[in-house]
């Protein structure tokens, strides 16, 4: 029997020409191949395999391998799937499971949940099996099964084309080859005016001004347009325009979203980082790495911290993650959901992959396992969203780093290193400094507690340094009573030290979760007379502390007001002390029994964690020691008698103080809302300390935690190891750094394809892959796969320069085509996937807004800084404020800024921008919708922004022209980039005369010509 491989079996776009011939010999069910002779596609084999390919292959060996059954080759077909029954018993259809299923005599009937095959097809399969199921060449080879986006990146040669004159760049040759293949031809080049308006909106989001138009028209050199592109890429407006695209992709907003939609005051430094990075043409790999792990990979680059705003860009459920009880399942689930957003954003943005689809089960379409998904969650196991500090000024950052490093050295054990810092100059300063303290230091004597009790059940233990540590139950409120006997003969003042301890939250010195304490009242009592047990209170005066929390000063501890107290927040994690003078000194020969009562009645567990009490006999006034106790003691030793160690200790202390002063003098650090493991706790939203445990949740169910996940990525990307080698798993930053490096690996097939496709999408209104966030099997296939690969490799080899990529595309003949219609071509390729013309695109919401401002002469080009609130704000009934876009003063300074600087309110978006299809900041938006609705028409006509700007436009035209025709001419040049026709001038001038220029301007803004770019 002679056969030919059926052409029907060819795969998408790759016609197979190989012809196989074979002879099948039936021998005990065995099939042998032999011979070579042509056969028709109408052969039994060809037709039968066509039926399998059309109806079965997708789920069994194509996109999926359901039930482990793969019929893409004869070998795997015969092997069968999970069922014990053999799919094909050669020559015996009735015994073959495959036939049973398609003929609906076996369960479950196939094709699954789809219509039964036709009787003719079933009969065909029966005959085919009866004939021994001839099947020479696999329907799919192993190579075919690798999805296009996971195939290694190879730079293809630009193809040969017939119309080589048209093809100006390699890009054009790839496009033209496809056009020629389909019998299409490119369109004529666009005219100069069209080209200019297109380039301006594309690269800067603004139209060309009449001056810019004039300059371009004057320049008749062949490089005129290339020069424009260079100028626009060098313009700061470029970064503003393209950062806005990036903000869509990462779903950035200035508020949390969810029900408690609070404003993030410090989200904007990330937006500014994007604008600056794009304007500086930062290499793409670095751009990616900074956004995931800038703090770890580029510690010398301060802007890299602002880049971490990427991780925090998405919504955050404040209610679940901050306000409800910490010990609930809702909180745990909230954390998984929060990390899910980080994983989804990262993998969609950089790798165009849908790892998030593997949360409840292995990915149904792409080779991503559930374990791999949770390994990605483990990358962010210690990362939260919160304000984190950074140095906006690089010089200050460098100095700060040097100083902090020196301080670490001083705190370390390397004596030689410390001695090296003590130069002769420093020694001289040191001497002068010590002299300034002569006679000013106070000797304190620590009291050894005799009894110590907690009123509300805390466990108190005495420490070797005479301090008392509080542990065990943490009552809401407590009163600590300590008795001791002072050995001094004269007591003039007492000192309270609150000390740190590893057992305390954030090391204390308080027991509150945030390390704070509140000393409501401090009392000192002594026996009324030596023989009596009755105690009397000793009056205290002139309290002073080394640090007072704003509004919570030490004076509150002696004001006998139970509502006020001394606190030390946010200076937690370090010891503090306060001194209080006795109004009348206590004199005694044998020592005085003292009773100290420390009331901590503020509530919320604001208790002292560790306390030490001291007394002194120094004469009044008593001030806080300018130096710590240990240094004061060394000062009492004459300089000549000091040991080397003592000298070093004094010098180190002096240097530390100097460094602190210099640090304090540095410009204030900035805050950015970012992914971080270091931040000030708010409520029960506090740093994880070390990465939290992440488990593989069975079916995604929080109640069914499986094995713990370990940080890693996807194994489907060839040549880039999915397992991370991390030196210290406790350092969450190292986990992020590993993922960043995995993404930017030169062999990462997804990442390099992803970015060039995104850029292409924004230039043409449609990507080479029409699903920029999904390069998986559910996504679209590339229309020009070779072009995509050529761009990806060229981009990577060129160092990841986005500006170079823009040049490559905008200088192509493809991009510079006219967008004119061609009815014949539209029949072949209605969506213009092959690019036989340029796409005509509607302006997006921001371009409408910004272009209107520029045209009316109102645009304020101030860059950067806190987000502009284009609404009025008042307190809401709960966390979310009340905001009213209708009450904003449109003519105020903030109303004239570019829209990239607007404050984006996640759950209360600007209704005008919304109507114009602005991205929903709760979703990752790779492509914006373009809708046409009556409500949009009403917004363009009646929204107060448009109405007010029409008035401004009219005022401006009043200055530009004297007569209505002159004014109409100026209006057209500004808004549409062309002079009006005679008919247009007449009609609009007539209208303007009767209804005013402002109404006329409103019409121009509402015209199709204004809102579309050809």
């Amino acid at each position, binding site marked *: 029997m002679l056969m030919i491989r059926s052409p029907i079996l060819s795969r998408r776009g790759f016609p197979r020409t190989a012809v196989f011939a074979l002879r099948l010999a039936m021998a005990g069910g065995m099939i042998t191949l032999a011979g070579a002779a042509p056969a028709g596609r109408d052969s039994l084999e060809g037709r039968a395999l066509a039926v399998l390919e059309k109806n079965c292959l997708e789920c069994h060996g194509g996109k999926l391998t359901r039930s482990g059954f793969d019929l893409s080759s004869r070998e795997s077909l015969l092997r069968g799937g999970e069922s014990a029954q053999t799919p094909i018993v050669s020559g015996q259809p009735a015994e073959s499971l495959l036939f049973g299923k398609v003929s609906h005599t076996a369960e479950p009937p196939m094709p699954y949940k789809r219509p039964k095959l036709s009787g003719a097809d079933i009969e065909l399969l029966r005959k085919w099996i009866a004939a021994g199921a001839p099947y020479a060449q696999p329907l799919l080879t192993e190579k075919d099964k690798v999805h296009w986006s996971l195939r290694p990146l190879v730079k293809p040669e630009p193809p040969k084309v017939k119309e080589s004159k048209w093809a100006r760049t390699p890009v054009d040759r790839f496009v033209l080859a496809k056009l020629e293949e389909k019998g299409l031809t490119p369109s004529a080049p666009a005219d100069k005016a069209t080209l200019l308006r297109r380039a301006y909106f594309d690269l800067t989001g603004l139209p060309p001004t009449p001056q810019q138009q004039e300059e371009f028209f004057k320049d008749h050199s062949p490089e005129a347009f290339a020069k424009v592109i260079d100028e626009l890429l060098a313009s700061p407006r470029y970064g503003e325009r393209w950062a806005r695209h990036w903000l869509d992709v990462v779903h950035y907003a200035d508020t949390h979203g*969810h029900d408690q939609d609070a404003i993030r005051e410090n989200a904007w430094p990330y937006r500014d980082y994007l604008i600056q990075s794009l304007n500086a043409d930062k290499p793409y790999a670095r751009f990616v790495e900074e956004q995931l792990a800038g703090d770890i990979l580029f510690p010398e680059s301060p802007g890299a911290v602002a880049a971490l705003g990427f991780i925090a860009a998405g919504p955050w459920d404040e209610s679940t993650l901050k306000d409800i009880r910490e010990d609930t399942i809702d909180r745990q689930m909230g954390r998984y959901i929060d990390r899910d957003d980080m994983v989804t954003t990262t993998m969609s943005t950089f790798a165009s992959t849908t790892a998030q689809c593997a949360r409840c089960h292995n990915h149904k379409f792409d080779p991503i396992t559930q374990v791999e998904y949770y390994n990605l969650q483990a990358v962010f196991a210690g990362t939260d969203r919160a304000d984190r500090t950074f140095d906006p000024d690089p010089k200050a950052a460098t100095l700060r780093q040097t100083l902090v490093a020196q301080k670490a050295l001083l705190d370390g054990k390397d004596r030689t290193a410390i001695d090296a810092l003590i130069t002769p100059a420093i020694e001289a300063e040191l001497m002068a400094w010590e002299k300034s303290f002569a006679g000013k230091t106070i000797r304190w004597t620590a009291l050894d507690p005799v009894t110590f009790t907690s009123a509300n059940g805390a466990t108190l233990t005495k420490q070797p340094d005479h301090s008392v540590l509080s542990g065990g139950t943490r009552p809401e409120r407590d009163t600590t009573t300590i008795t001791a006997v002072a050995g001094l003969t004269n007591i003039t003042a007492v000192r309270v030290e609150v000390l740190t301890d590893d057992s305390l939250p954030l090391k204390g010195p308080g027991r509150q979760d945030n390390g704070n304490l509140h000393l409501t009242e401090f009392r000192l009592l002594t026996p009324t007379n030596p023989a009596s047990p009755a105690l009397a209170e000793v009056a205290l005066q002139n309290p002073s502390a080394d640090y007072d929390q704003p509004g919570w000063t030490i004076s509150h501890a002696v004001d006998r007001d139970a509502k006020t107290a001394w606190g030390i927040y946010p200076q937690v994690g370090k010891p503090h002390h306060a001194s209080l003078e006795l109004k009348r000194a206590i004199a005694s020969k044998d020592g005085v029994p003292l009773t100290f009562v420390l009331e901590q009645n503020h509530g919320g567990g604001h208790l002292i964690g560790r306390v030490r009490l001291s007394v002194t006999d120094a004469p009044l006034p008593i001030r806080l020691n300018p130096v710590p106790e240990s240094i004061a003691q060394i000062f009492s030793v004459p300089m000549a008698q000091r040991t080397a160690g003592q000298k070093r200790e004094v010098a180190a202390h002096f240097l530390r103080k100097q460094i602190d002063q210099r640090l304090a003098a540095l410009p204030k650090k900035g805050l950015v809302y970012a992914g971080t493991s270091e931040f000030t706790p708010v409520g029960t939203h506090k740093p994880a300390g070390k990465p939290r445990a992440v488990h593989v949740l069975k079916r995604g169910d929080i109640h069914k935690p499986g094995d713990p996940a370990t940080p890693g990525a996807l194994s489907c990307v060839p040549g880039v190891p999915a397992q991370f080698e991390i030196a210290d798993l406790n350092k969450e930053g190292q986990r992020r750094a590993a993922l960043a490096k995995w993404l930017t690996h030169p062999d990462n097939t997804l990442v390099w394809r992803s970015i060039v496709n995104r850029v292409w999408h924004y230039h043409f209104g449609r990507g080479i892959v029409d699903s920029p966030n999904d390069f998986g099997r559910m996504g679209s296939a590339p229309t020009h796969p070779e072009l995509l690969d050529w761009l990806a490799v060229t981009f990577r080899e060129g160092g990841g320069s986005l500006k170079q990529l823009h040049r490559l595309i905008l200088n192509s003949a493809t991009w510079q085509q006219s967008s004119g219609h061609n009815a014949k071509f*539209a029949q072949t390729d209605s969506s213009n996937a092959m690019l036989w013309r340029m796409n005509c695109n509607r302006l997006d919401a921001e371009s409408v807004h910004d272009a209107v401002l520029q045209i009316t002469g109102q645009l304020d080009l101030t860059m950067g800084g806190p987000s502009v609130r284009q609404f009025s704000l008042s307190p809401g009934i709960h966390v979310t404020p009340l905001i009213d876009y209708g009450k904003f003063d449109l003519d105020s300074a903030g109303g004239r800024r570019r829209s990239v600087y607007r404050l984006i309110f996640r759950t209360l978006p600007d209704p005008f921008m919304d109507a114009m299809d602005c991205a929903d900041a709760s979703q990752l938006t790779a492509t914006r919708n373009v809708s046409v609705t009556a409500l949009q*028409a009403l917004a363009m006509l009646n929204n107060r922004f448009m109405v007010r700007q029409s008035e401004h436009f009219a005022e401006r035209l009043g200055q530009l022209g004297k007569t209505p025709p002159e004014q109409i001419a100026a209006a057209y040049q500004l808004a549409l980039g062309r002079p009006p026709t005679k008919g247009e001038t007449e009609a609009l001038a007539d209208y303007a005369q009767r209804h005013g220029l402002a109404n006329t301007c409103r019409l121009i803004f509402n015209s199709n010509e204004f809102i579309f770019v050809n």
Partner: protein
Amino acid sequence: MKNFLPSSRREFLWRFGGGLGGIAMAQLLGRQELLADVLAKGHLELNGGLHHPAKAKRVIQLFMNGGASQMDTFDYKPELIKRHGQKFDPGAGIHVEAATSVPGNVMKSPFEFKQHGQCGRWVTSVFPHLATCVDDMAFLMAVASKTNVHGPASFMMNTGFLLPGFPCLGGWISYALGSLRDNLPTFVVLPDPRGLPYNQKGNFTSGFLPVAHQGTIIHATAPTPIADLFPPATAKFITKESEQEGLALLNKLNREHLAQHPGDSRLDGRIASYELAAKMQLSAPEVFSLTGESDATRKLYGIEEKATEDFGRRCLIARRMLERGVRFVQIWSGAGGPTNNWDNHGDIPKELPPIANATDKPIAALLKDLKALGMLEDTLVVWSTEFGRMPFTQSNTGRDHNGGTSVAWLAGAGIKGGTAYGESDPWAWKAANGKTQSYDLHATILHLLGINHEKLTYRHNGSDRRLTDVHGEVVHELLA
């Protein structure tokens, strides 16, 4: 949905999001060539439905924001009376936790339960008017949520997901069915005038669907109920004449432009959208004016009484919009935040009666009015909340959030009145039998509209998204 051109007027019409149905069809049917057939059928109404014949033409959803207490309204539990004041112990060492408080003691309802109607449903004294309608209502007695937190729970009941950014029920219906008429929006929302609910506008979003499917907010009592319907009153330069002539001139300019740029249906579309906008300007004000309604009707809805004036007015406006072709109306009772809603943490006896009272008479009036007008035949009424409340106390007499179980009811088109499905445990703490979730409620609503919830999908970032995610069973037990 992308920036490239639709090929034809036909494709444009699908994309238009108004009149004829929305692009859902193209994906749903899977074959371009079938589009013409569907178009030929005209409006997809009761005759065809999207996937099967529909029972309901339109929907009105009443959303009780904050978590309406099931055991103080419809879920009668003698066990709570028996164990009142005792420590709450479900037995078997089961851990009991609450979202915002330490669990208190068991609390019986402070309100008296009585059986009503032919069906004998139990209703407390907080709903005297609704109690007279129980024979028209079908109850889901064990609606569970996946969370005990307002934000995610409200998202779930509106969009089927705990996360923000997914299209809501009204958005999906608009996408699937489009409008009944083109002079009013397809999907409108009437929020509580005291404030937007939890998640603010996130509950009415079209998410990744085209913005045409977003809920249009109607400020029923504001001078301009629909934003931008008319120019701002301050813009004196815009007059009736300037507007009329201006729109004609705009039309002329756009048509000249179209003649030079043929083959782009979006340009046609924009021209048509201005015509539709003008129609809406004519139709909308009439809807909000209640002057044409009789005194009897106004009385029925409680518009003459202070307690029910606002909610009654919104219910009556909703009825008027449904009459005039709006497909989906959502009315909210209660603002976000800790008060003025159903989130009665502090004091059930004091906090629940006023909010219940404000809605009781108007909702009963709506049911009776729709029935009298013959509209209940093809109008589906849905009453729901984001979760229930706890059988034990918070503070002294309040109740904390409870995702374990809650009550929802449906009435009207295709609904078997006087029935109930599902049952909570003896404490109304968790769903016991016939547990349902947002998915099942949504699947049932879509089913009545002639939509198979598994087939209504939209491809977004790699997934064929559904309102019901990967869940959802139609609750046939409630269907007539």
